[in-house]
């Protein structure tokens, strides 16, 4: 039934009192202040907040692209050091290599693996099927629509079977219909893979539809204002009173009342 056989290993993420500044014009620009967040294995957490409040920066710290911060980020109790294949990320832009086909892009994550080639090939195939791109293995990125490219990027991040998947506004650039469709797909993939997900989004509706908890951030410097548990069973009905209530609560926190 499951397209991808092996389930992701379980992972607990602890973000402890993390602060981060960039240096702009030789002056420190505080971007994140005292961020504290614990994410349980298999949880789906969304982060919402005004643009510029440090959401992407936080994901970059967790994925290990930037080690210059204060505080601690622990994965299963151990401090993260640099990128690792147990953490996958889908950037806001798909960032597929334009000179590689869909399957070669996805296979990149398996580079250097010592498993036999037919196992690796199967994992690529399975992940292509998982994101619904079967038949497009040999296509180049310029031949894909925005939604398809984003799916390929998701497959590329999942092929390593990460314990944690970080998504940075993965559906932000898509039209609303494609978006609603891919939200359902994300839900299906998350349930199927049981991977821990942290997703940045500016769409409160999307956050409530998908997440177990929604982290609301406020800007300058980026801080956590509140963490809202959603507490609704899947599949969620956008038109329901409960859905609207949670959404209202998040919107209220966002506007800072």
């Amino acid at each position, binding site marked *: 039934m499951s397209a991808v056989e092996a389930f992701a290993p379980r992972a607990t993420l602890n973000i402890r009192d993390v602060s981060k500044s960039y240096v702009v014009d030789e002056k420190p620009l505080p971007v994140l202040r005292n961020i504290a967040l614990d994410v349980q294995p298999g949880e789906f957490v969304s982060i919402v907040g005004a643009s510029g409040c440090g959401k992407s920066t936080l994901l970059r710290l967790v*994925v*290990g*692209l930037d080690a210059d911060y204060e505080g601690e980020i622990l994965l299963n109790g151990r401090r993260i050091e*640099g*990128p*690792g*294949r147990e*953490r*996958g*990320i889908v*950037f806001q*832009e798909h*960032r597929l*290599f*334009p*000179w*590689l086909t869909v399957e*070669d892009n996805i296979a*990149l*994550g398996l*580079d*250097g693996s010592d498993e036999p080639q037919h196992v690796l090939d199967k994992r690529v195939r399975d992940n292509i099927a998982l994101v*619904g*791109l079967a*038949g*497009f293995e040999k*296509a*180049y*990125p*310029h*031949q*894909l*629509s925005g*939604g*398809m490219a984003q799916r390929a990027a998701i497959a*590329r991040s999942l092929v*390593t079977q990460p314990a944690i998947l970080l998504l940075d506004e993965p559906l932000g650039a*898509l*039209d609303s*219909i*494609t978006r609603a*469709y*891919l939200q359902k797909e994300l839900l299906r993939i998350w349930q199927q893979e049981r991977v821990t997900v942290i997703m940045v989004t500016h769409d409160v509706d999307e956050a409530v539809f998908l997440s177990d908890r929604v982290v609301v951030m406020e800007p300058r410097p980026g801080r956590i204002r509140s963490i809202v548990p959603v507490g609704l069973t899947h599949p969620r009905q956008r038109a329901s009173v409960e859905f609207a209530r949670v959404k209202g609560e998040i919107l209220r926190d966002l506007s800072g009342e």
Partner: protein
Amino acid sequence: MSDAPSLRSARPSFNAGALGRGLVIPGLIVIAWTVVTHGGLVSSNLLVPIERIIALPFTDEAGVQLWPALLASIVRLIFGFAIGASAGIALGGLMGASRLADRALGPSFNALRQITLFAWIPLLTAWFGNGDMPKIIYVAMSAFFPAALNSYIGLRGISAQYFEVASVLRLSRLTRIRKLLLPGALPSIFVGLQIALITAWLGTVSSEYAMGNGRGLGGFLLEGRGQFRMDVVVLGVVVLALVGYLINVGCAKVFRRLLAWQGDNK
């Protein structure tokens, strides 16, 4: 579902209209040439009728020398280009891939690049005489700079975003080179090779012309001029341009095929 996977349309194959438009100017020149030479406007010693030029390499005693001359030039071009372009890609690649190499070699490279190539000819003849050696070195130098510069630009132009992907996916050094650096720089390297081939071709003929001595299209021109054979000179210039044109067309065709991943609106 609006996101139904479907492929973007394939690129159109061959653009006959563009070729037609490209022939307008040469066509006009041929017509004007014919009108002028046959209209008795100019003494035929200075401007030669086009049909005589075309017949020359097959009928005329001096004209048939074109073939061995052309062959000799092309051999020089191939050797010089091969040496210069590979050295250029190697140096440009090194400077593009390593900040350290860039800092160490960049200033000298850029200083040398400023020197007009032609200025090297007296030096080269002083050092190596006027045989094949200085000519091939000159051709190699002509190819070297554009190949090096464009390889460097190609590597430096690869988006930092892709390097982030490479580190998130923990790509090995070899995979980085094969799947990111090389293909990422390739379009620019190809542009460099195309320019290098053209400059190497001009370098071939001009070094032959400037250094004299020995077979080659440059020598062919030189002799024609010495014997006041305007028709031979014109033939040489036409062939010089024709080879350059063929290099351009051939490169564009080959490189477009090799860069199929770009599609038509790269």
